[in-house]
C-alpha cells in the first residue's frame, strides 16, 4: 500500500466473527497494530504481516464481553486493557486486567499490583517522581535479594487527554498538538499526523525530501541522547560527555533550519514551513561530516571498552521469539534480530534503497550497537538528500477539503519504532475518531520482561537502553 493512504472500510462483522477472524489471522502470522472501539459502538482492529495490512471492522458484543485473546496471543494484552478501559468491554480470561491511564475517582492511586506472599521476596516501589529529570511513571519490583523476579510497570501519570483534543474542531489545524504527543519524537509524530491530513484531503505533500531529512536528524539526535545516557549509567563519563556534545551539534543543525532544537514548527500538513537553502545545506553537510567522524570515534571507543562491555553484554535480554510473540517493534525488535522497519515495509520516500540494520543478541549491548549503526545509516541518507537544492518554492500547499466518511492511516518509523496514526471522518467531515499508537505502548512490556533475573541495580541501564516514551503511551 502507499503510505499514508485512505483504506476501504471492510464489511462489518458481528462481534463473534470479528474476534474469530483476528484469531485466524494471528495464527497465520499476523500481528496486531491496534484494537479499539469507536463512539458509535464499532470495533476496529488493524493487523499486519510484513507490509501486508488487514483492517477488520465489527460490532460491539451485546454482552459487553468477549473471550480474551491475550492468553493465546500476548501481543493483545495492553490493547485489550485499553479497550476495557475506554469502552467497558471485558476481555474474559485476561491474565491481568487493569487500567492503563485513567484514574478511578479523583486521585490516581490504589491500583492492585501483582504480589507474592512468599517471605523470601520483597517489593521495591519507584516513582512516579524519579530521581533524575525524566517523565513520571511507577515501577514495582518484586525481588529476591538483589535479583528482580518480576516487574510491573504502571503508567498513566502523563495522561493529558490528547486524543479528545485531536477529535475536536478542524483536523487540519493540529500540527502543534501532534508535535507534543511526545516532544522527543516531535518530527516523527508530526509527520504521521501530516500524512493523515494529506490522505483525508487528497493533498499530495511538497518538500518530502526535507521531511525525510528532518526525520533522520531526529533519529540521530535521540540515539545520541540515549547512548550518552547509557554511558553515564555505567559511569563511563568521557563517553557521556563526548556524545552529549555531539547531540548538541546535531540539534543545533535542526535549529539552524527551523528555529527549534526538536524540529517543532518545521512540518505542516501539505509540506514544510522551512526549506534548506543551498548555502545552508553546504554548511550543514561539512559540519555533519565532522560530527559523523567524531561520533564514529566516540562510539567505536565506547563499544569496545571492557568496563562498558562488562555491563552491556548479556544484560536485559529480549529474544526474537519473545519479541515477535509480544509484537514488539522498533529498536527492541531489531536488536533481537527481527527485520522490522517501516522504512522498508511502508516507505514514505521509496527512492531510498534501504536495508534495516539488525543485531541478534537482544541485550543492552545489541540495542546500543544498533543505535550506533542506525546513526551511521541516517547520516548516509542525509548526505544523499542534501546534495540537491531543497528550497524550491512553494514549500507547502494548503490542504484541500476533508473527505467525509474516510478512514486514513499513516505510518512513520520514528527513532523508537513504528508510529501509527489512524483517523476516520464522519459524514459531515468532522473527526469520528483519531488514534495514536506510539511504539512505546507495546514495548514497555519488553522492559518488564528484560529485567527478570537481573540485579535491580541494572534497572536504570536496562530502562535507558529501551528509552521508551511515557507521554507517548499515556497520551
Amino acid at each position, binding site marked *: 500500500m502507499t503510505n499514508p493512504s485512505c483504506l476501504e472500510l471492510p464489511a462489518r462483522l458481528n462481534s463473534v466473527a470479528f474476534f474469530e477472524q483476528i484469531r485466524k489471522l494471528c495464527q497465520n502470522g499476523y500481528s496486531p497494530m491496534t484494537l479499539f472501539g469507536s463512539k458509535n459502538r464499532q470495533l476496529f482492529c488493524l493487523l499486519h504481516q510484513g507490509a501486508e495490512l488487514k483492517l477488520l471492522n465489527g460490532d460491539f458484543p451485546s454482552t459487553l464481553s468477549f473471550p480474551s485473546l491475550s492468553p493465546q496471543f500476548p501481543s493483545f494484552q495492553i490493547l485489550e486493557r485499553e479497550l476495557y478501559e475506554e469502552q467497558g468491554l471485558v476481555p474474559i480470561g485476561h491474565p491481568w486486567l487493569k487500567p492503563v*491511564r485513567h484514574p478511578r475517582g479523583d486521585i490516581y492511586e490504589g491500583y492492585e499490583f501483582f504480589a507474592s506472599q512468599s517471605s523470601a521476596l520483597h517489593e521495591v516501589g519507584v516513582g512516579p517522581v524519579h530521581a533524575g*529529570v*525524566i517523565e513520571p511513571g511507577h515501577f514495582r519490583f518484586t525481588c529476591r535479594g538483589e535479583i528482580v523476579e518480576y516487574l510491573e510497570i504502571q503508567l498513566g501519570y502523563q495522561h493529558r487527554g*490528547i486524543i479528545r483534543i485531536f477529535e475536536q474542531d478542524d483536523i487540519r489545524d493540529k500540527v502543534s498538538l501532534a508535535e507534543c504527543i511526545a516532544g522527543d519524537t516531535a518530527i516523527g509524530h508530526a509527520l504521521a499526523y501530516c500524512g493523515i491530513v494529506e490522505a483525508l484531503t487528497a493533498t499530495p505533500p511538497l518538500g518530502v525530501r526535507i521531511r525525510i531529512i528532518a526525520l533522520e536528524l531526529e533519529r540521530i539526535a535521540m540515539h545520541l541522547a540515549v547512548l550518552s545516557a547509557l554511558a553515564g549509567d555505567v559511569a563511563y563519563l568521557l563517553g557521556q560527555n563526548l556524545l552529549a556534545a555531539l547531540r548538541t551539534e546535531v540539534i543545533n543543525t535542526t535549529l539552524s533550519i527551523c528555529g527549534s532544537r526538536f524540529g517543532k514548527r518545521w512540518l505542516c500538513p501539505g509540506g514544510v514551513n522551512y526549506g534548506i537553502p543551498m548555502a545552508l545545506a553546504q554548511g550543514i553537510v561539512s559540519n555533519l561530516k565532522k560530527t559523523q*567522524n567524531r561520533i564514529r570515534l566516540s562510539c567505536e571507543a565506547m563499544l569496545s571498552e571492557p568496563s562498558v562491555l562488562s555491563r552491556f553484554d548479556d544484560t536485559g535480554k529480549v529474544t526474537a521469539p519473545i519479541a515477535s510473540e509480544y509484537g514488539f517493534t522498533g529498536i527492541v525488535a531489531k536488536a533481537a534480530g527481527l527485520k522490522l522497519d517501516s522504512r522498508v515495509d511502508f516507505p514514505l520516500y521509496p527512492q531510498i534503497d534501504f536495508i534495516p540494520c539488525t543485531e541478534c543478541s537482544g541485550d543492552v549491548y545489541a540495542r546500543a550497537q544498533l543505535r550506533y549503526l542506525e546513526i551511521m545509516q541516517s547520516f548516509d541518507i542525509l548526505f544523499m538528500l542534501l546534495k540537491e537544492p531543497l528550497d524550491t518554492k512553494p514549500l507547502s500547499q494548503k490542504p484541500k477539503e476533508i473527505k467525509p466518511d474516510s478512514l486514513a492511516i499513516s505510518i512513520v518509523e520514528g527513532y523508537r519504532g513504528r508510529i501509527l496514526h489512524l483517523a476516520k471522518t464522519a459524514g459531515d467531515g468532522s473527526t469520528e475518531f483519531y488514534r495514536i499508537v506510539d511504539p512505546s505502548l507495546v514495548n514497555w512490556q519488553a522492559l518488564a520482561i528484560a529485567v527478570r533475573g537481573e540485579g535491580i541495580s541494572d534497572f536504570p541501564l536496562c530502562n535507558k537502553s529501551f528509552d521508551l516514551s511515557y507521554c507517548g503511551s*499515556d497520551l
Partner: protein
Amino acid sequence: MFELLKARILHGYQAIPDPLKAKINQAFPGVPRLSAGADLAALAKCCPVNAISDSGLDLGRCIFCGKCQRLDPEAVSFEADFRLAADSREKLIIRPGQQDYPETSIQTRLPRQFRRSFALRNVSAAGCNACELELGACSNVNFDMGRYGIEVVASPRHADALILTGPISQNMEAALYSTWDAIPGPRFLILSGACAISGGIFAESDKIRRSFASKLTVTLYIPGCPAHPLSIIHGLVTLMRGR
C-alpha cells in the same frame, strides 16, 4: 584507545564561555516584537494556543510555532534573543510597540544565601519530554550550569526550588503536591515552558489540573516550547545575582 584519544582531541573545549552573553543562531525565535499598528484580531485568529489578545502577545502561552509571523511578518517578529524569563505573569504579555522586554523582566532577587548555590528539584507533570531534555541539557558540557552553583538534585529534601515542567495532569497532581510539601523552606517555584506556565496547548483539556500553579507564588517564569537551556540559565542566574 587511539579512537578515544582522537575523539577527545577533536572534542576540544566544548563549554560555552559565557552562557549569559552567548550568541544564538539567527533562526532561533526568541523575544517577540509586535509592531505598533499590528492587527491583533487577525493574528489572534491564527494562534493555536490563544496567546494573542487585545493586550498583546502572551509569552506564557506562546509555543513559538511562528504561525503569526508567517501570516504577517510586518506585524510580528521574533528576535534571536533567548532572554525570555520573567518574574511576574503580567510582564510576560508583550504589548504592541514594546521594546524594553528583557531589560526589566527580572527584578526580583533571591535572598543573599542563594547567590552562589541553588539546588533544583524537577517534577515533570505531563511534560512531553522536550522541556525535560532541555533542562537536562543545562547540565551538559556545553551549557554547564554547575559553574554558577546551580544543580538538579535527586531528593526534594535537598532542594531550594521546584522547577515544574508540563501542564499538570490530573494523574500527577497528588505526586506534585507531595514533592512540594517535602521541600524545606525557604522554597521557590519555577515554571519552565508554556505548558507549566499556562497549560500551553493542553490548557483546555479536561485531564489537566492547574490549581497547583495558580495557587502558589511563582518566583520565575521561563517561556518556550520547550524553554531553551540558555533561557533557563539566564533566568536562574539573573534571579540569583541580579543583572
